[in-house]
């Protein structure tokens, strides 16, 4: 009964999204205040009904209702409770429902927190989001109903959640990623609304910016968690594979990064308006493309679920509608919103432009590499694959080009600046960065020119920022007053850029200094890696809630002192019979020690073992967290709240229209 209730709620939600996509849009066209005013209520109604559907499916998972197909295929009575909650999105149908729920959340959030927005704008924004909702809810209901039953023929027990997904990291990775993906639909909706209304100014950018920053922050965290999960769960010790689905999440991130920066120029200077709109369209289209790549199974990937051509076709059509429709609208309306603002070449605008070009080119190269196999296959050129060397060869130089220019960003001034002033400001940071590059790698490790370069670029960013903070704080009457002058948006930028610097160091140091040994070991054996002695003490069988495992117990010594005990496992899950490697990691700020089991070799209880030494790998993820925290911080800025009050004062704001 409960699953049918969920199904019914989902159908009602679809009906409401159809209403939301039509009525307020019509109201905005006819200037009908009543029709427009329906939008927030409809948005909340959609959230209510999608939540009911979601709760119903969760109920089915928690209560082991194996007559529901999705539950039977992805859960098991032995599955620990928290994984029963997350098993919901460990499959195609459920993850679409999660997607729909998050879209409903974002729509309701816009409806709730943008009361200060002119009604005309709000109605259009919510209407566009409603249209996106129609696309996804009908996709869910027509091609992948999560509430489909297995009647008759209900199995006695479920076939269990894929063991790879039975992991805390995977509980939060998809929701965060979806928050990011779907969050860009807000930026998209604002862009479309602006095109429709012909109104694109600083106020528009100020409305759109906090939403974009939040979406970007969630996406950053989602990607970071995915990378972290791959590192400890896949058992290879890798953290980024340029897998098509990783790329699918990375492309909207790259486009989103460009968008976040171009929005700054649009808000502060009224520049790059039509460009910003285009980026918002790109970012969301890439999110949809990502969904298509993941859901249609056209590419070989860890994330590909069993394929179904109907689904792929549906998303492809939806994607074509969204991209085609929005670009047509853009072509028709962009001239009306383009800007006539002048700026000098030596200015913050140029630096932001450079940022945008780099990120756009990066997006396109990743897009090209990801789609290249599909294109070649379609042209009958055979099945090719594009490997990580391609992506590294194009991506690394682009980022290396970005970092030096990025250092000028914070100290630069809008409109017109002088190179002489830049050099005067940044001579000291540059010298300090150079000094760091020469001395730092000597402290602890063999000299490596790439690490030295990375340290230099990171130090250049950090010292440049420090110099800028110092300048700003010093201009206050005393220290506290100076610190108060730093606004949340400035602090956010600071954190995000520091995070980028940390990422540079983490990525390069890990790739250059990591030591990886695959070898045969039997109990009693020892191996020294980077000064750490890994002793294989014993091999014991252990039993978990829904698996049995062989556990290798390791002790790690440094200079004769025991510093860590590691116990990697090789698990066999009972329900599916699937074998899984559970790596053991001793994490540290400056180095990770990683042990994973391969398979038994020979007769004497020996195993193939993976021993890794990964310096600075945490810096990469910490950097990503800093970036996300930075993006969240910017939203606290007073000007986003103040605008709400002033905008409220001039209700209903119809005068702002075309």
């Amino acid at each position: 009964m409960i699953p049918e209730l969920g199904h019914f709620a989902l159908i009602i939600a679809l009906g409401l999204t159809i209403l939301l996509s039509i009525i307020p849009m019509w109201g905005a066209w006819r200037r009908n205040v009543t029709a427009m005013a329906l939008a927030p209520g409809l948005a909340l109604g959609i959230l209510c009904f999608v939540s009911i559907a979601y709760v119903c499916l969760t109920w089915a998972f928690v209560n082991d209702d194996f007559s529901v197909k999705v539950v039977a295929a992805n859960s098991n009575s032995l599955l620990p409770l928290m994984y029963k909650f997350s098993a919901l999105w460990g499959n195609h149908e459920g993850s679409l429902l999660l997607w729909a729920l998050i879209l409903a959340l974002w729509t309701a959030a816009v409806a709730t927190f943008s009361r200060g927005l002119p009604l005309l704008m709000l109605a259009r924004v919510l209407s566009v989001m409603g249209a996106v909702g129609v696309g996804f809810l009908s996709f869910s209901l027509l091609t992948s109903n999560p509430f489909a039953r297995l009647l008759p023929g209900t199995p006695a027990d479920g076939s269990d959640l894929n063991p790879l997904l039975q992991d805390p990291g995977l509980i939060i990775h998809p929701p965060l990623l979806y928050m990011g993906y779907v969050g860009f639909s807000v930026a998209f909706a604002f862009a479309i609304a602006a095109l429709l209304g012909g109104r694109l100014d600083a106020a528009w950018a100020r409305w759109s910016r906090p939403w974009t920053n939040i979406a970007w922050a969630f996406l950053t965290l989602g990607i970071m968690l995915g990378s972290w999960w791959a590192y400890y769960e896949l058992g290879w010790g890798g953290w980024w594979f340029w897998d098509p689905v990783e790329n699918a999440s990375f492309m909207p991130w790259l486009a989103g990064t460009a968008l976040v920066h171009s929005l700054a120029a649009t808000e502060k200077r009224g520049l790059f308006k039509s460009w910003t709109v285009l980026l918002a369209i790109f970012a969301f289209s890439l999110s949809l493309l990502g969904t298509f790549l993941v859901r249609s199974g056209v590419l070989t990937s860890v994330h590909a679920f069993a394929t179904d051509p109907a689904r792929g076709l549906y998303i492809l059509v939806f994607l074509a509608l969204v991209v085609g429709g929005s670009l047509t609208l853009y072509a028709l309306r962009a001239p009306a919103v383009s800007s006539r603002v002048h700026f000098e070449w030596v200015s913050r605008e140029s630096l932001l432009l450079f940022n945008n070009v780099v990120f756009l080119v990066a997006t396109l190269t990743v897009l090209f590499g990801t789609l290249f196999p599909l294109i070649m296959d379609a042209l009958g050129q055979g099945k090719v694959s594009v490997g990580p060397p391609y992506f590294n060869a194009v991506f690394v130089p682009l980022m290396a080009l970005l970092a030096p220019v990025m250092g000028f960003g914070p100290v630069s001034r809008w409109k017109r600046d002088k190179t002489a002033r830049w050099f005067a400001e940044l001579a000291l940071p540059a010298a300090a960065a150079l000094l760091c590059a020469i001395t730092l790698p000597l402290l602890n490790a063999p000299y490596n020119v790439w690490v030295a370069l990375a340290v230099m670029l990171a130090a250049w960013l950090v010292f440049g920022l420090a110099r800028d903070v110092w300048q700003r704080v010093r201009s206050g009457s005393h220290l506290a007053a100076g610190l108060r002058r730093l606004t949340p948006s400035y602090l956010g930028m600071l954190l995000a850029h520091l995070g980028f610097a940390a990422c540079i160091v983490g990525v390069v140091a890990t790739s250059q200094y990591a030591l990886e040994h695959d070898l045969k070991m039997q109990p009693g054996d020892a191996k020294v890696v980077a000064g750490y002695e890994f002793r294989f003490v014993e091999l014991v069988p252990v039993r978990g809630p829904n698996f049995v495992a062989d556990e290798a117990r390791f002790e790690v010594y440094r200079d004769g002192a025991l510093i860590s005990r590691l116990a990697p496992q090789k698990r066999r899950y009972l329900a599916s019979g699937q074998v899984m490697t559970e790596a053991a990691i001793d994490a540290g700020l400056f180095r990770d020690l990683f042990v994973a089991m391969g398979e038994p070799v020979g007769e004497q209880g020996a195993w193939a073992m993976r021993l890794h030494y990964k310096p600075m790998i945490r810096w990469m993820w910490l950097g990503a967290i800093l970036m996300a925290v930075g993006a969240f911080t910017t939203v606290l800025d007073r000007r986003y709240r103040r605008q709400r009050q002033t905008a409220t004062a001039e209700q209903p704001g119809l005068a702002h229209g075309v």
Partner: protein
Amino acid sequence: MHPIRRQRLLLVLFIVLFSSAAVGLITYALRGNINLFFPPAQVAEGKAPVGKPIRVGGMVVEGSVQRSSDSLEIAFQLTDYKAQVDVVFEGILPDLFGEGQGAVASGLLGADGVLKASEVLAKHDENYMPPEVAEALKQSGFDHKGKPQ
């Protein structure tokens, strides 16, 4: 020239220069970094290039997996039920690798017809077959159990 127009011209020039640099970079990176897929039948016919990175996919022949007792070297055969290819690999295989299962090996083909694999991919879950393997089997006209289709 009007300053705004001049600015636009410079902008366009900048973008053109930058993107041609990017295209150059891409072509450079693509050379030698794409590897073509071959079903075992084509490898046996000598259609696959020797000494260039390729991928070969098929089902792992039952009873063909041989592990060395003192190193991590593993030898196995991949088949599309028309022909077989010998593969050697040193390292740790993915968890889902197994006899009678689909796998894709990428590496260099030796003159002796043995593929020296640097990476072996196995399918990631029970219901999922790497598209390349599915394609190879379709070409050879057998299903994954070796029965003619």
